[in-house]
Structures are given as structure tokens and as C-alpha cells.
């Protein structure tokens, strides 16, 4: 007589929904982890099945750690979904320190009633993103909240990476005279997501630029002497404008940008025009700003452009002395203006 290993019926990923049992810490939860998460994310550390993961770190490095919560509506959008976004977002935060991302942890908050089919798609997209990036998801957690208390899925991810001992890359390192480089056109992620929002749906060929940037960073850092890259930052929420203001405040200097050198795809420009939004404030998930010592700017720009994710990289301006930390911009039109912090959420204007 053949004995079945256990008598649990496989999860119905086609029609099933998340229910409170999945979060109760019992069999159903274990089954969801086993049949979905562990299978999708499979790697030796995760396979241990313990509450944490014991990990190796390369010698002579410092540990970099970053964490990010992901809440996004809609959960799936042209060019990506919350799953791959939650991998890219955190990896990029680690990479912007100049570190090599090594491991990820993921925590899921699921809403009762959420379709398992959609969850499976999201988890598999997340697994693929982690695989492509070469960074395993080594530990995680799942909780279920009652219907109405979540937005389908929330994903929090934490990443760790290794930073060569002497490397110092950060907002405070930028200084007057440095050159500001941008890895490509702005606003695609934000516009792709907006285009799917209920009551706003519009047709656009724009897909999110969500991508893991550590390869691009590695190529950039390899092309210039250690210490030449002062700051790296991915302009996510708040867009390029907010990111540059953050850096200006950190380093106590101002910036002067040239609008004509900031690439914006025509469809992004058109969508922003229509909604009364400014692409400078729209989120990106696959772009970076690099602030580089002027003598190495040309090499740095060439290194970015030589990578598939940085093909459209440009030099957009310089860091300049300014105790007020203004980010100024020469407009395409020939005037000059401040590029201010975003105040509140960007909201479409009415007339």
C-alpha cells in the first residue's frame, strides 16, 4: 500500500482566494509557503526552513542594508507589477550605496479574499526578478489581514549588500563643480501606473522602467577610479526634482540643470501635459543619478551609455556653490527657474 506523504489537497491556484487560515500559522499557511513562496524563490538558505538565514559575507567589506515597503495601485501595470518592483526597489537602494546586493528578505501582508492566481503571478514575477538580478530571497514572512484592511498585497523587502571597506558614496559627498549625470529618460514608471488608475485609464505605449540597477552601477564604478563617483541615487517617488533637492540639502550646495538635456519620452511628455503634471516629479524605478568629479565625468557617462540600462544617459547639469541649496534650471525656453521640492502628492490640475 502506497502511503501518501500527507493528506493535504494541493492549493487551488486557479480559483482559490486568500483566507484567514493562510495567516493563522497553521497548516494552510505552511502549505501556501511551501507550494508558492518556497517553490518560486527556491535557494539553499530558504530551503533550510528556519526563521532566519545564516549568510556569508565577503571579507573586508562593510554591510549595507536597505528596506522598503511597497504599496501600489494597481498591483499590475504595463511593464511590471508589485512583485518585481519590490525586488528592484530594494536592490537599487543597496546599489546606490555603491554596494553589491547579496540577499533579500520579503514580507507579505495579504488581504483576505485576494485571488491566489494573482498572488501567484506576482510571486513568480518577484522570483524571476530576483533570479535575473542574481540575488536570492533567503527569508520571509506572510500575514493575512481581514478583507477591507489591506489593498490586496503589501510587500516589504529588505536587502543586504557588501560595500568595499574604503568606499564612500552618498548625498553628502557631492561638491561644487561635480557633474550630474542621469541614466535615461524620466517619468515612465509613474505614467505607466497612472495610465491604469481607475477613472483615469488612458491609452499609452509607455511601460514602467522598473529594473535592477546594480549591473549598471558596477559598470560605472569599474570605469572610473575609486572615489570619482560621489553620489548615486535612484529618483523614485517624487521624481528627479525631489531626488536632486534631497542631495542638495545633504551636501549643502546647489545645482544648475539644463532642461534641454533631461530626456523625456514624447508620450510621457504628452501624458503629463494632459494631466497638468511635471515629468520632473514623476516616479522612476529604473533610472539613476550619478554625481561625479568633473575630471571623470566623460568616462562615467561613456560607461553608463555602454550599458543597456544607460543607453540614453546624459549630463544634465552641475553642482554649484549655493548656501541656500537651490536646484535651478535653465529652461528649454531660455529662462531660469527653481526646481522645487514636491509639495504634497502631484495632483492633476483642473483647467
Amino acid at each position, binding site marked *: 500500500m502506497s502511503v501518501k506523504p500527507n493528506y493535504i489537497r494541493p492549493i487551488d491556484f486557479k480559483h482559490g482566494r486568500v483566507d484567514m487560515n493562510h495567516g493563522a500559522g497553521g497548516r494552510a499557511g505552511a502549505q501556501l509557503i511551501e507550494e508558492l513562496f518556497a517553490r518560486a524563490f527556491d535557494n539553499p538558505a530558504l530551503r533550510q526552513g528556519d526563521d532566519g538565514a545564516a549568510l556569508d559575507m565577503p571579507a573586508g567589506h562593510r554591510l549595507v542594508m536597505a528596506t522598503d515597503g511597497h504599496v501600489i495601485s494597481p498591483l499590475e501595470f504595463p511593464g511590471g507589477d508589485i512583485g518585481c518592483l519590490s525586488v528592484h526597489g530594494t536592490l537599487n537602494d543597496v546599489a546606490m550605496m555603491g554596494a553589491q546586493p547579496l540577499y533579500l528578505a520579503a514580507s507579505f501582508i495579504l488581504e483576505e479574499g485576494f485571488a491566489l492566481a494573482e498572488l501567484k503571478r506576482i510571486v513568480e514575477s518577484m522570483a524571476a526578478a530576483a533570479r535575473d538580478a542574481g540575488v536570492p530571497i533567503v527569508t520571509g514572512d506572510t500575514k493575512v489581514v481581514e478583507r477591507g484592511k489591506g489593498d490586496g498585497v503589501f510587500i516589504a523587502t529588505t536587502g543586504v549588500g557588501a560595500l568595499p571597506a574604503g568606499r564612500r558614496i552618498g548625498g553628502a559627498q557631492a561638491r561644487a563643480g561635480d557633474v550630474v549625470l542621469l541614466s535615461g529618460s524620466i517619468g515612465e514608471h509613474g505614467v505607466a501606473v497612472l495610465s491604469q488608475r481607475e477613472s483615469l485609464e488612458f491609452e499609452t505605449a509607455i511601460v514602467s522602467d522598473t529594473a535592477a540597477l546594480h549591473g549598471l552601477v558596477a559598470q560605472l564604478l569599474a570605469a572610473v577610479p575609486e572615489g570619482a563617483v560621489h553620489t548615486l541615487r535612484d529618483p523614485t517617488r517624487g521624481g528627479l526634482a525631489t531626488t536632486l533637492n534631497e542631495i542638495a540639502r545633504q551636501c549643502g550646495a546647489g545645482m544648475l540643470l539644463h532642461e534641454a538635456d533631461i530626456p523625456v519620452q514624447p508620450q510621457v511628455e504628452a501624458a503629463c501635459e494632459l494631466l497638468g503634471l511635471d515629468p520632473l516629479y514623476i516616479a522612476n524605478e529604473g533610472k539613476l543619478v550619478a554625481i561625479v568629479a568633473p575630471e571623470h565625468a566623460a568616462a562615467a557617462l561613456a560607461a553608463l551609455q555602454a550599458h543597456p540600462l544607460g543607453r540614453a544617459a546624459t549630463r544634465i547639469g*552641475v553642482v554649484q556653490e549655493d548656501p541656500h541649496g537651490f536646484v535651478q534650471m535653465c529652461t528649454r*525656453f531660455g529662462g531660469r527657474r527653481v526646481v522645487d521640492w514636491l509639495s504634497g502628492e502631484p495632483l492633476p490640475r483642473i483647467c
Partner: protein
Amino acid sequence: MKYVDEFRDGAVARGLAAAIAAELQPDRRYSFMEFCGGHTHAIARYGVAELLPPQVRMIHGPGCPVCVLPIGRIDQAIQMALDQGAIVATYGDTMRVPASQSLSLMKAKARGADIRMVYSAADALKLARQNPQREVVFFAIGFETTTPPTALALRQAAREDLPNFSVLCCHVLTPSAITHILESAEVRQYGTVPIDGFVGPAHVSIIIGSGPYEHFAEEYRKPVVIAGFEPLDVMQAVLMLVRQVNQGRAVVENEFTRAVTREGNLAAQAAVAEVFELRERFEWRGLGEVPYSALKIRPAYARFDAELRFGLGYTPVPDHKKCECGAILRGVKRPTDCTLFGTVCTPENPMGSCMVSSEGACAAHYSYGRFRDIPVVSVPA
């Protein structure tokens, strides 16, 4: 997007700037008011002011629908949502406008009010159909541009006999506001308004046409040039205004012929006339009460009038005592003349109407132009 680029061409702009400078009479100053927030925004965002000769001064008028919305009206909307359980649907940028008791629609939403952002009056109708058990109120604000869609929504609601839809009508009228700026009692209090001419509204004029400004130009001896919202439109309009001033003329000219006619959109005007009538008094934020400057819903559509349906009373709420909006909107003062500017009053925490939306005079100067107030060392990039 070639279309847009043509209107933002830096070389053409420099050419226009040179043409304006060449036509200026050396011994006089020129002050023009752009009524529309869209123009204010374009001037600030593209740095148009930098290109204009110093003799030409642009005065930012009250033409931002969000800025002129009085606090008392937002209080009404909040009251319906928070106290009477209605779903209040509104345009996005209305959400942030500060109301009484440190509230705003956005903050009321955080306290449990059901406030939905919509992109059109038709979306508000849709909400009413989808939520038959709830009262749905469309908080309708804006100038002549947003009025026709509200009128159409009201007509449609009547046709469907929608029992749970109503409109809090706060639509205001451009021409009466311009007149008010020139002749209200406050003009005496604030001093002479140094306005030599007006850059007329773009989108508003698509609806009402250029006709309504004719009597105005004649009566007040002020030239009006209707202009589009692109920065080159604004510069072209300035050139046309300078010419009129130099020649002693005061007529309505249309720079925006690609969209504006003398008659405007007659179908839209008819829809508005069917549904709305003039309000005798309406408070504008920053300008105070302006007679016959707004619309209310006609008795035939009374059952869709949120003010009647919810028995709303109106309580005016004054701006901060030190706020200079009134003088700024009339061109007598500049944002930096206000002691609250940039310290107490910022876009995150506006004290007066001019700081509310990025199209307001104070907010535009704060967000785009404040570096001009402070000498900044700049190295050429």
C-alpha cells in the same frame, strides 16, 4: 509632441524678447495682468519673466480656480462628507486647499470622510450610479472652462432621474472678476491699480469667445489680448499689448486664433444657460464678495442642488490677518511684500489664496522664482 515644442522654442523666444524690447518707449513702464493661473504657471515654469525687459512687469491675477475658492465653500463640502455621510467627488487639486480647523478635503478623508478624486463631472455621475445607496455630491469648481461639463452632468442626471446625485456649485465667471479688480471699493483702499492691459484667458475664451471682453476694453480703456498657455503665446501677447499701449489703442485682440473665436462655443454656452443662472453675490478667496460673479443652479434643477438638499448655510472664513492676497491679486503688491511669504506661508501650509495652487502668484514665485530674491553664486555649466 512637435506641436508643443514649437511653442517652447528658445530661439523664437529670444527673437520675441528682442522685438518687445525694441518697441518699448524708453521713458515708460508697462504693467500687464495675466488673469489666468495657466499663464502665471507658464511664466514661472518657463522663466518668461527673465526674458522680458525690466520695464515690463507681469501682474498675476486671480485666475486660478483653486486659489479663489473660499474656505467657507470647502468647509461646506467637508461638512457634507464628514457630518452627513455623503460621497464628495472633486477635482484633484481641490483636495489640498486648506479649510477651517486645519482641515482640507485630503485631511477630512484621513478622518473617514468619503472623498473621491475625479477627472470629470461625468465620473461623478458614474459614482452616483455605482453607489445607489449613498448620496453623491459633485463639488463643482472652476471658471467657464469646467462649467459646461457640470451643466451636461446635471442635464444627464435629470434625464436619468438620478435620486442620489447633487452638485455643490462654485463655478465663477471671469469677466466679472476682471471688472471687479478695476472698479471695486477696495481699489480706493489699495491705491491705483497700475494695469496697462490684460493677457486674456485661453481655455475660458474657447468657451465664451472673445466677445465678452470688448465692452470691457472699451469702457476701461484697457487693451486685452487673448493668449494660449504656451510661453511663446504669452510673449507674443505681451508684444501685442505693448503695441496697443504705444498706439493708444484699447481693443480686444486674439493671439489664440488657433482655438478662440469671437462667439466661442455656442452649444456649451446654451447648456450652461439652461442649467445655471447668475448668483447675486459670491465670495472669492482673496477678493471678498464679488457681485454677479458666480453661478447657481436654476430652480428647474433645484433637486440636484446640494446647498438646498443638505440645507447648507454659508459662513465666510477670513484669510490670515497679515495676508496680502487682496493687494497682490490687484497688482498693488508683490508676493515678497507680504511678511508671511516663505516663512509662515508656504505651499505646504498656505495662509492665503495665492499660495494654494502652483498657479497662484505667491506659490508660483515661491516654487519657481524665489532664487531671484537672493543673490546666488552660479557657475556656468
